[in-house]
């Protein structure tokens, strides 16, 4: 099982986390066109390579953080960043 590097708890089993998906910037809901908003809701980059994504340390410190992971190898880059933009999907 993958080890996910929590900035607070250290590396822990992926099963201790909830996956938040790709980190996208939330458009301003008052200005976004339907296309922009729905692109934010539904469209994915889904690269086979480095992906900036959100994790929630559900069994541990209960903090959201952003990391970069290579989706081809599942390797993480160092230095997770606390908090991030909302995944947008409940």
């Amino acid at each position: 099982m993958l080890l996910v590097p929590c900035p607070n708890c250290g590396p822990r089993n992926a099963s201790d986390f909830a996956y938040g998906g790709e980190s996208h910037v939330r458009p301003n809901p008052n200005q976004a066109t339907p296309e922009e908003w729905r692109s934010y809701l539904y469209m994915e980059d889904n690269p086979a390579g480095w992906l900036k994504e959100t994790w929630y340390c559900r069994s541990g410190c209960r903090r959201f953080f952003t990391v970069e992971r290579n989706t081809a190898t599942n390797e993480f880059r160092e230095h997770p960043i606390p908090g991030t933009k909302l995944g947008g999907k409940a």
Partner: protein
Amino acid sequence: MANALEFESPITKRYPSGGSRDLALSDESSQTKTLVRAADDSAAASQLGVAFGGSRHQAGVHIIGQRPTEWLLVGDESAAAAMVVGLDRTGHVSVIDHTHARALLRLTGERSADVLSKICNVDFGDHMTPDGSALSASVAKVGCDITRDDASGIRSYRIACDRSFAQYLFDAILDAGREFSLTAVGA
């Protein structure tokens, strides 16, 4: 009808008494538990004197750095109250009585880490989880806060979980401890 202010334990099953006490599971849910939430760099934080991942005892209160910006204070009612009264509330500080929200179990004995290792994926070795360390993890699929709190040199863990899960968790730990002759005491 129960006496008005007698604390009702979440462990409602009865277990045979006797058996070895070398490895014991007990219920400490009636302890007063106070959750303090404040910034890690607040005055309250420095008063409490431990950071996330650590714990210490002071004036009859077990101060546990349970999560970043969260401390759990465990003790008898008066000691806990005294500590809360003295708490510096500068900044955004919340104090929540968690006595009823969280059950508190204690697992004591040389083989207590072996018991936990059957139902919790955390490394309970001395390097990663020394005496005094605090962490949160899933135990038998229940979210728990675990603090290593050795009792006179004997390995011991305090395990807190949502009160509603307490009976299930108590039984799951007993089941895991069967091969080491774990006994329930005082419940």
